[in-house]
């Protein structure tokens, strides 16, 4: 330390800090001499005498890594010797620790010193302790077990009377304290909030902030103390507390609106220079505090006019004051601008903020330019004209030498893309992609390009070529869902039969020429896409011989960089193509090579190829080419193996046990748990016949023999079954590969092949569709093409806002799928109403991140649908047209729609109520009233509309009812619902929407669970037009517990036994028993029966079995047993996640009492 005190106070007090870097530069020029000559005065002051100094100097003199390693190892041995010696004093220990830290920082492990670091923190005096804590925080991370030894030290130091020790303890606590140890020290830290010294209070607040971040529930009880910290007389403590508030407000802005005025007052005081001069930074008052406050205010003012109005004045003042020319004022300005654009808009503030952004963008300082672009990107959705104003600057930035600036400009362009400028912008993005060295950017940008291409592609050629570039540039880094959704788009089609055919044909053509070129340069993912497309669609190209394609594909197999995954794609494609003598010969040859491959998947594919190429009849059956719209049925229970199983069992084989059961058996090695179900009911032997439940062996035999072991899962109708089966086959990552087999059949209409069309496709290929402006051309022209359509556009049309122009490549399956598969309640897809059509266009369809499972299932469903519904599905009237027509349909629904189940004609229309009438329940359709409904809750309101909703639990369905009260003249109300977890289908629509008078309209939807979750949510949007024709929309969401979908299931004990063995998803947990005088098991089961609608199948002794179903026909079985004062519950179901969700609700139900 002595050497660190070397600097005379004068030397630094006189030095202006801003010049520091220059000074450092000067010092550094002297460096080489310092290092080599020990005798120089400069190096003497650098603790030349200390051992650390010697070590460091030793290392700098070395020439090779090897020498360094030797030296450090020697050093470590010596440190190790000394730290473990009992004679080493704490002072020496401190010195040793510093050296150990140095060695570690060079990348050499010194784990032997960890324990000594903790000892030093425990036993040393102030500075020694400090080094100890520092070493601990550098050596160990949160999860290190040695940290437990530190808890006591921290506790002791927190209670110390020495302020420095308390400070150190608080610092270390915020740095790396294990989560589960927080409760041990929390009271002491809390106590420090009242410490007389402000630095302690500050650090205590920050420590609590850290606790809040890592374990929010542990500091929940001290929220009022945070308020006290906010009111602390020391501005530093108050500043520290703002970190917590920022976090809290981010999570729940509505909970802290009352503080808005206080924050504004604080900001006023700060801006007005009321704080002690200590808080100034380069003569700007407390910039950190100002920025923190601005961030909080923008959160509070977002979507809240009242709160925003309070802050307009101070924002204005901040914008005006920050005229000075210093970085820190720019920082404040930037934050101010963001705030102004986030809160409820005020025109003159926006104007000032826009000017500010202009100054940033036009600034010569590159940092400011960057932030200006960022700000533009941020505001461009609200204010596209601003981008227009600065278009020339943006064009310049697009060619900036700094890649970061370029990147930000590209991002900005991405936000202003529309159908008119998409080609130019995508071109610019791809141009950037080619120069960008950074993987993260590549992944991000390829995703964005793919998104734009899918959304705005002007024509097929452009689309395929753009995607080709995405695949080649994005390579194997890009998000896997890009190729997935691309293939899905190709296979599902989008725009009518002929268009689909052209697109596919073009893809085939383009891929064949790519393969003829240099396929070795293409990334694996792209090769996989190519293989799949060629396998599926190369037959569309008439003059292309399958053998030619096979030979091209064969070349891929021979390249050494081809991964085995790609190879199996290739083999799969070959399997589909081997037709005719020449191809069979190639196929045979290939399959012989790979049939002995070490890779089992490849071997399997080769086997398939061999067999199928020899037997064309079998191939046609397994891989039917086109027009085969029959979905494949997948028997998930593998019941066709029943015969085989029973034979094996008869021959003495052990019955199959699912993995979880085997594991369990391993766990409780000697217990009787060999029986999955028999164990649970051992006493039952007396009370029921042997045939009911016996050993699992017998049970599984019986299930094996029954041949209809999956009867129950079949009950849900074909839809349910297929969903189920598909899921299992397709696994998470297997989507693409399997899709070769399954999705292949999706809607391939028998193609009309004609050479002339082929020629057309060829010629269109040869012309380059991208009108990239020449480099010499004036930037003006680029600008006009980039910003085309921007000026005329209303902000609504920009990205992130509802799209008035539907996507070009719209996938059409999902919405239809949901409507038909929803419950089987809607008798035919024809009865799906206009709002379902709207549904089709819902955002979720465009979401490329849809997991493959549901989308796959929906594709199968479409097939059925299109069969029964050919007129619409294949007719010229595509979805887009339906969209345009939907308003019309809404107002004149066809009479057939009101037939049957849909006959729920809402009575209220005869006597339209005023919307203020709270008694919405009177509007509930009569046939729903008898079932009892949940409380009617408001969904959303504005001046013209009021939406409320409730749900009605019917025996076999769940009806979701939406009430729309319109209080002013609006027209063309449309409702759109979508949900991640639920299938939504429309039961009935209000036949007419009253335009002028105040009326209540009732919409009914039937909901079924697609994917179980503890709570499920329906989100939706209502769109309408004001009387002047302006379109408006409102969004809402409605949450309901999974239990609303649970109904009792009546099964016999025998059936139960059979089902139990079939189900593969299960969960177990111990729950608390209810004991209110009654026999605990009965009491508990009664609660479950009452609250969750579980059906009790049988209760014997201390065990009970229950059954229920998730609407519709998705069973879940429950077995429970009283054990050691707890209820051991075991749930099983064929539906993933269902057991877990149910156990949660059981727990809730039992806790509630």
């Amino acid at each position, binding site marked *: 330390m002595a050497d660190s005190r070397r600097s005379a106070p004068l030397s630094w007090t006189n030095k202006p800090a801003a010049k520091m870097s220059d000074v*450092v530069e000067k010092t550094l020029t002297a460096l080489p001499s310092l290092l080599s000559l020990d005798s120089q005065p400069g190096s003497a002051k650098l603790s030349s005498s200390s051992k650390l100094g010697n070590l460091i100097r030793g290392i700098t003199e070395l020439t090779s890594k090897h020498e360094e390693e030797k030296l450090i190892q020697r050093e470590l041995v010596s440190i190790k010797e000394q730290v473990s010696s009992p004679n080493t004093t704490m002072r020496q220990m401190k010195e040793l620790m*510093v050296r150990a830290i140095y060695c570690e920082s060079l990348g050499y492990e010194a784990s032997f010193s960890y324990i000594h670091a903790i000892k030093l923190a425990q036993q040393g005096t102030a500075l020694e302790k400090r080094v100890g804590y520092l070493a601990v925080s550098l050596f160990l991370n949160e999860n290190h077990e040695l940290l437990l030894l530190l808890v006591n030290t921290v506790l002791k130091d927190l209670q110390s009377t020495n302020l420095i020790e308390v400070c150190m303890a608080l610092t270390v606590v915020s740095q790396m304290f294990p989560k589960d140890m927080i409760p041990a020290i929390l009271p002491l830290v809390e106590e420090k909030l009242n410490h007389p010294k402000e630095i302690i209070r500050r650090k205590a607040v920050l420590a609590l902030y850290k606790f809040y971040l890592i374990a929010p529930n542990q500091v929940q009880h001290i929220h009022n103390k945070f308020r006290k910290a906010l009111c602390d007389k020391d501005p530093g403590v108050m500043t520290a507390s703002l970190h917590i508030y920022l976090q809290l407000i981010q999570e729940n802005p509505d909970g802290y609106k009352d503080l808005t005025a206080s924050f504004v007052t604080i900001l006023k005081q700060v801006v007005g220079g009321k704080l002690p001069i200590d808080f100034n*930074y380069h003569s700007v008052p407390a910039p950190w505090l100002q920025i923190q406050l601005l961030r909080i205010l923008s959160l509070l003012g977002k979507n809240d006019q009242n709160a925003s109005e309070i802050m307009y004045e101070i924002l204005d003042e901040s914008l005006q004051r920050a005229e000075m020319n210093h*970085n820190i004022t720019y*920082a404040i300005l*930037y934050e101010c601008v963001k705030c102004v654009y986030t809160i409820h808009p005020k025109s003159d503030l926006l104007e000032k903020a826009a000017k500010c952004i202009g100054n940033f963008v036009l600034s010569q300082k590159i940092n400011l330019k960057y932030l200006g672009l960022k700000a533009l990107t941020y505001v461009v959705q609200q204010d596209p004209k601003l981008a227009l104003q600065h278009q020339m600057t943006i064009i310049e930035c697009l060619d900036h030498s700094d890649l970061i600036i370029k990147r930000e400009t590209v991002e900005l362009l991405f936000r202003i893309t529309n159908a008119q400028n998409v080609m130019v912008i995508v071109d610019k993005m791809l141009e950037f992609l080619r120069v960008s060295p950074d993987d993260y950017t590549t992944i991000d940008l390829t995703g964005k390009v793919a998104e734009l291409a899918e959304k705005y592609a002007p024509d097929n050629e452009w689309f395929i070529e753009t995607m080709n570039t995405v695949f080649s540039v994005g390579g194997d880094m890009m998000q896997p869902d890009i190729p997935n959704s691309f293939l899905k788009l190709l296979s599902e089609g989008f725009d009518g039969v002929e268009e689909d055919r052209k697109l596919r044909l073009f893809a085939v053509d383009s891929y064949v020429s790519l393969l003829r070129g240099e396929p070795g340069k293409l990334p694996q993912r792209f090769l996989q896409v190519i293989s799949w497309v060629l396998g599926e669609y190369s037959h569309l190209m008439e003059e292309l011989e399958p053998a030619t394609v096979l030979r091209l594909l064969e070349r891929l197999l021979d390249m050494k960089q081809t991964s085995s995954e790609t190879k199996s794609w290739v083999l799969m494609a070959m399997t589909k193509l081997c037709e005719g003598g020449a191809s069979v010969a190639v196929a045979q040859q290939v399959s012989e090579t790979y049939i002995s491959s070490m890779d089992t998947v490849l071997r399997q594919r080769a086997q398939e190829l061999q067999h199928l190429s020899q037997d064309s009849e079998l191939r046609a059956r397994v891989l039917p080419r086109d027009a085969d719209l029959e979905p494949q049925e997948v028997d998930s229970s593998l019941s066709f193996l029943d015969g085989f199983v029973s034979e094996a069992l008869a021959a003495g084989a052990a019955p199959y046990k699912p993995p979880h059961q085997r594991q369990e058996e391993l766990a409780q090695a000697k217990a009787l748990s060999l029986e999955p179900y028999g164990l649970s009911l051992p006493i039952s032997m007396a009370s029921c016949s042997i045939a009911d439940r016996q050993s699992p062996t017998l049970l599984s035999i019986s299930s094996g023999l029954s041949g209809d072991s999956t009867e129950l899962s079949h009950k849900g109708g074909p839809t349910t079954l297929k969903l189920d089966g598909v899921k299992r086959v397709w696994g998470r990552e297997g989507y693409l590969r399997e899709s070769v087999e399954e999705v292949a059949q999706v809607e391939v209409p028998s193609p009309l092949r004609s050479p002339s069309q082929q020629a057309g496709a060829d010629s269109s290929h040869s012309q380059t569709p991208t009108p990239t402006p020449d480099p010499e051309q004036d930037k003006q022209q680029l600008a006009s093409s980039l910003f085309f359509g921007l000026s005329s556009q209303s902000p609504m049309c920009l990205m992130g806002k509802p799209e008035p122009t539907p996507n070009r490549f719209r996938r059409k399956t999902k919405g239809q799928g949901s409507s038909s598969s929803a419950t089987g309640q809607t008798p035919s897809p024809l009865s799906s109403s206009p709002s379902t059509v709207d549904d089709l266009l819902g955002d979720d369809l465009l979401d490329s991140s849809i997991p493959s499972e549901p989308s796959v299932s929906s594709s199968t469903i479409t097939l059925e649908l299109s069969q029964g519904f050919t007129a619409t599905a294949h007719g010229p009237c595509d979805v887009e047209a339906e969209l345009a027509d939907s308003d019309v349909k809404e107002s004149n629904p066809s009479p057939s729609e009101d037939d049957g189940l849909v006959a729920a004609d809402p009575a209220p229309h005869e006597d339209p109520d005023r919307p203020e009438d709270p008694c919405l329940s009177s509007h509930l359709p009569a046939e729903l009233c008898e079932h009892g409904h949940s409380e009617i809750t408001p969904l959303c309101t504005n001046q013209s509309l009021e939406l409320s909703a409730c749900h009605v639990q019917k025996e076999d369905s769940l009806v979701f009812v939406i009430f729309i009260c319109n209080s002013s003249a609006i027209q063309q109300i449309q409702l759109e619902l979508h949900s991640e977890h639920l299938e939504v289908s429309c039961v009935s629509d209000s036949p007419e929407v009253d335009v002028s008078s105040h009326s209540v309209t009732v919409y009914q939807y039937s909901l079924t669970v697609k994917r179980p979750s503890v709570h499920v949510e329906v989100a939706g949007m209502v769109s309408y037009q004001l009387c002047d024709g302006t379109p408006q929309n409102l969004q809402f969401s409605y949450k309901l517990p999974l239990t609303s979908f649970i109904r009792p299931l009546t099964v016999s004990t025998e059936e139960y036994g059979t089902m139990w063995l079939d189900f593969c998803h299960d969960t177990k947990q111990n729950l608390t028993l209810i004991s209110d005088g009654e026999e605990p098991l009965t009491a508990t089961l009664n609660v479950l029966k009452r609250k969750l609608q579980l059906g009790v199948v049988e209760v014997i002794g201390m065990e009970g079995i229950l059954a229920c179903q998730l609407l519709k026909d998705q069973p879940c079985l429950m077995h429970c047993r009283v054990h050691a004062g707890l209820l051991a519950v075991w749930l099983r179901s064929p539906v993933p996640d269902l057991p877990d969700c149910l156990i949660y609700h059981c727990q809730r139900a039992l806790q509630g009492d």
Partner: protein
Amino acid sequence: MMHFLLLFSRQGKLRLQKWFTPLSEREKKKVIRDMVALVLARPARTCNFLQWKDLKIVYKRYASLYFSVGLDEQDNELLALEVLHRYVELLDRYFGNVCELDIIFNFEKAYFILDEFLMGGEVVETSKLAVGASIEEADTFQE
């Protein structure tokens, strides 16, 4: 909130590392490697900001040393530059004409100053005087 603060030399040697969010050793190594590579590759007269995964990187070169911090998406880049500057001022004030060698030979002091200035990734004390005083107090205590 800051996620980390790194000091490294033009040769890519790490001089100081401070982590404000928990990371495993392997992740730390990756961050350090990427930071050094990214920052050192930046040509002169380019802006001081970078994007790395979902973090903003703000860096600044003082003589032969690069100071760099990783920030959340919503954090203010310019403010972070000032944090770095204030830290340099603090070092300068303590060491007097601070240079890389001061930080190499007395890295523990550099850490202590940082601990007084930042806590949990946020600025705890903005006053130069106060930080200086508390460090000196601790030093005196030891003597």
